[in-house]
């Protein structure tokens, strides 16, 4: 036999054997491996005994502990970080793109990627114990623009939610044409936290998006929806500073909730809200904003169009939202800012705000990234 043929046969045999063993290991892990009962200790004082073998994220969810995750546990959003005190093993390659060196030193892990195979001790923020799963019913679907829909969810069980203005929830999309299994996506709540028997969200249609396509094209009034929440660190800080809000598109949602909450609580801080859109067909909730201008003593809503159509007959501000903010910013002294929108919009606005003297630590944002 030629040496080349012999070599090819050897390589082929090794490849086949390796593939076979890998397949056996995957099947064995999924079917035969029995990790038995394992103990999860949370924040050193809460213990749960669970069946081992599943990812930490879903295991915690089965114990009604909800860790924020925007991708449904696929390791593509990097949100579901937890601090592991002991018992998680080595970092997986799928975690490393999300974990900085500082976080590595703290043993921060992605809970969707690590499996619970033995006793494990973790640390999570205390507020996550307030996160619950809710069953709700769609009571209203409203087109805010041609591609943004408002969804009103009336709570069934539990019947009330305690949330802070600016929070987000995770909406569960059930199995449908585009997905064989339920998936979760994060949306900011736009309703007044005082109306604690319902939540409203605003959803812009993302081309090919699993959740947004479901909400825009499949969801009907009367449907049941499961969601969990609330989550998030985007909220109005309790200070006396003037407030600047900047948003675009469905970034309106948490800002609207914050404004409604300010009106409810009688907060009278000077507030300017810049909202960027392309033309009048991209503007929405103008009446609601006018109402807030009447209720809040020093509030102005400043919509700006980047490319108004001739038929718009627009007399308001024009230009990119960054230019409009720069033109209207009186002073950066004693001001804090709240931004919600695309990463490009936020990065550009942060530059303008810091350039006008607002310290970066006083700029709070909810970036869609």
């Amino acid at each position, binding site marked *: 036999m030629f040496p080349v043929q012999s070599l090819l046969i050897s390589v082929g045999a090794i490849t086949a054997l390796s593939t076979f063993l890998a397949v056996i290991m995957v099947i064995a892990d999924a079917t035969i491996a029995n990790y038995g009962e394992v103990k999860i200790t949370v924040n050193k004082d809460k213990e749960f005994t669970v069946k081992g073998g599943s990812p930490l994220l879903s295991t915690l969810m089965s114990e009604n502990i909800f860790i924020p995750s925007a991708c449904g546990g696929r390791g*593509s959003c990097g949100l579901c970080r937890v601090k592991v005190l002991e018992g998680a093993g080595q970092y997986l390659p799928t975690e490393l793109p999300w974990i900085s060196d500082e976080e590595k030193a703290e043993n921060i892990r992605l809970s969707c990627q690590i499996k619970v195979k033995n006793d494990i001790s973790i640390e999570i923020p205390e507020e996550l114990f307030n996160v619950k799963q809710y069953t709700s019913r769609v009571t209203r679907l409203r087109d805010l623009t041609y591609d943004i829909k408002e969804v009103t969810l009336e709570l069934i069980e539990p019947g009330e939610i305690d949330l802070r203005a600016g929070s987000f929830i995770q909406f569960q999309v059930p199995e449908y044409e585009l997905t064989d299994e339920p998936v979760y996506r994060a949306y900011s709540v736009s309703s007044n936290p005082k109306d604690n028997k319902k939540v409203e969200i605003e959803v812009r249609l993302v081309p*090919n998006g699993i959740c947004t396509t479901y909400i825009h094209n499949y969801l009907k009034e009367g449907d049941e929806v499961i969601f969990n929440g609330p989550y998030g660190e985007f909220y109005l800080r309790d200070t006396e500073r003037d407030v600047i809000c900047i948003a675009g*598109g469905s970034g309106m949602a948490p800002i609207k909730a914050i404004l409604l909450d300010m009106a409810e609580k009688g907060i009278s801080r000077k507030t300017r809200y810049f909202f960027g859109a392309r033309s009048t067909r*991209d503007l929405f909730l103008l009446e609601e904003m006018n109402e807030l201008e009447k209720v809040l003593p020093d509030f102005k809503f400043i919509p700006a169009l980047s490319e108004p159509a001739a038929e718009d007959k627009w007399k308001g501000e024009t230009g*990119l*939202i960054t230019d409009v903010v720069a033109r209207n910013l009186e002073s950066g002294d004693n001001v804090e800012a709240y931004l919600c929108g695309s990463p490009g*919009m936020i990065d550009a606005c942060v530059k303008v705000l810091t350039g006008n003297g607002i310290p970066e630590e006083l700029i709070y944002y909810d970036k869609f990234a």
Partner: protein
Amino acid sequence: MKQTPQMQKIQDNMRPGVITLDGFLGNDSRNLIDILVEDDADVKRLGYTHKTVAMRMVELRDAGKRGLGEFVSVEPHFEVRVDSVRGKLPCPFGDPGVFPKVNTTVRNLELDREITFTDLNIHFILAHGFYEGRGSNFRLNPGEVIKILEIEKPSEDSVPFLL
């Protein structure tokens, strides 16, 4: 065409539920190597290169970034919106880094046609000549991309796709 074990491993990474819920192959029953070879042949037959296609996508995406998340007019008759959703994706070919979920939607007003592509699509085409499998949510038909984005023919020779 026969597929190497390395290519098979990449194909496995593209299956539903590994990196994304739906994967990158749609309902395409062809092997990855066949998808790559057929799309490569299509692009060459039309007189283009993957690099030319990808660079036009980059050009329009960068022009669309001016809109800060909203549609913006781009000469001569395009409207482009660059938007993001939460999350980042690794490349199933095993390239380093992760790609933010940036969606670029290009409307060709003259043709009255629209196309949406991601940053990962751009990387796929530039680095691998991969347009995703048939039936995949983000499958890009090379001929349609070339037509809708009005890509000019390159002067240089076609570059082979890289694996």
